[in-house]
């Protein structure tokens, strides 16, 4: 384990025509600063910075903002949902997350997706564990159940388990470098691995790329490993695309947790002090100011 104390959080934020990822990154970073007290860095491009509210990202939320232009212009259209009643398509631009190893100025880093909100300090435990790579393997919905969709559990219904790229801890070790090199290789040869692991063509999904990387690095065996390990505090809790936020209280969030089989039904759930992957980004936008109040 690295003996250095330089720890930080990194966020990749490349806007598309539908979503202001920089704005989302500001909220996520504010939550990280409040609960983990980490130095935060945003990696973005000049276009996203020019579009976004400079008062927000330059207000001290980020200790560093790195302009790193996208070099990959491959079409990667993703279907987004906002509750069961709205749907939109947009280019998914976060294609270079695997480059974070070289881009990170920290000795120990947690890479966060910008739609991840930190509401406790459990991820700080990751810095004290001798595992160079840590990420989430299991995930639970707001109803504390396994994901409804097979592709949120496995690459196909009989395939390898899914590892989530939403939050990744890494240090500057040889093993970490191996992981990111493998990720780069999988991305470079994504069509081949799509055919080999038999998952649907189309969208490049970073979760699939890291899952395949983990499988390759563990000698094609799904095992418990001290080197490529799971983050503390599993499973990862997430708000699905078809869930919605009812309101934000002074300490937590009230959600509508959607029923996948009967989409007109929701149950109310309350979350306080839990880290959350908020997949419905439009819901975050609608309640942005209230969510920001949780962390200031």
């Amino acid at each position, binding site marked *: *384990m690295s003996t250095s104390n330089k720890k930080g959080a990194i966020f990749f934020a490349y806007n598309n025509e539908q979503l202001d990822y920089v704005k989302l990154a500001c909220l996520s970073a504010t939550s990280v600063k409040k609960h983990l007290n980490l130095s935060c860095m945003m990696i973005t491009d000049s276009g996203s910075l020019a579009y976004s509210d400079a008062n927000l990202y330059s207000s001290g939320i980020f200790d560093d903002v790195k302009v790193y232009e996208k070099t990959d212009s491959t079409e990667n259209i993703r279907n987004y949902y906002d509750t069961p009643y709205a749907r939109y398509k947009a280019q998914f631009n976060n294609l270079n997350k695997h480059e974070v190893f070289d881009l990170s100025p920290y000795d120990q880093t947690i890479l966060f997706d910008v739609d991840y909100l930190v509401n*406790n300090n*459990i991820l700080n*435990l990751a810095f*004290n*564990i*001798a595992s160079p790579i840590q990420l989430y393997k299991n995930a*639970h919905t*707001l*109803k*504390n159940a396994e994901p409804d969709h097979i592709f949120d559990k496995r690459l196909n219904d009989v395939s390898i388990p899914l590892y989530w790229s939403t939050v990744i801890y890494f240090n500057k070790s040889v093993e970490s470098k191996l992981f990111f090199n493998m990720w780069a290789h999988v991305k470079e040869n994504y069509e081949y691995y799509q055919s080999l692991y038999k998952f649907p063509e189309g969208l490049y999904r970073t979760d699939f790329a890291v899952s395949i990387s983990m499988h390759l690095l563990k000698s094609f065996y799904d095992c*418990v490993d*001290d080197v490529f*390990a799971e983050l*503390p*505090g599993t*499973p990862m*809790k997430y708000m699905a695309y078809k869930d919605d936020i*009812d*309101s934000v*209280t002074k*300490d*937590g969030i*009230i959600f509508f*947790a959607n029923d996948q089989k009967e989409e007109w039904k929701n*149950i*109310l*759930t*309350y*979350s*306080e*002090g*839990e880290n959350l992957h908020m997949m419905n980004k439009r819901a975050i936008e609608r309640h942005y100011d209230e969510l920001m109040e949780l962390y200031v």
Partner: protein
Amino acid sequence: MDSKLEKALDFSNFRQTLYNQQQTLFSKVEDLKLLTYRDRLIRTTEQLIALTKTMIDLEYSEFVVDDVNGNPVKIDDPNDFLENIVYTYANAKNEHFQGYEKIRKARGIRSLVNIQ
């Protein structure tokens, strides 16, 4: 829909929400029971506390326990370890108790999910 059925459905929604909040609380508490010791992740339990206290009473200067992955961890300072695990466990269970009391006293979905 007749009112008897509606009440039954309201009740089942309440029970479903109640169960979900209990599970959420349980998950949170399980996370709070975690601590790191000598670069390893350990989950504090009543058994671990009892084992550690026993080892101290029997004057073992060191002993071995499992981390969350079932791998062995050498405890070379049992007293320090005991203090840490007791503190972590007690804090987690206190949160559990307080959260459970809130849930137990809720008489409707609104109070369960903190709707003001």
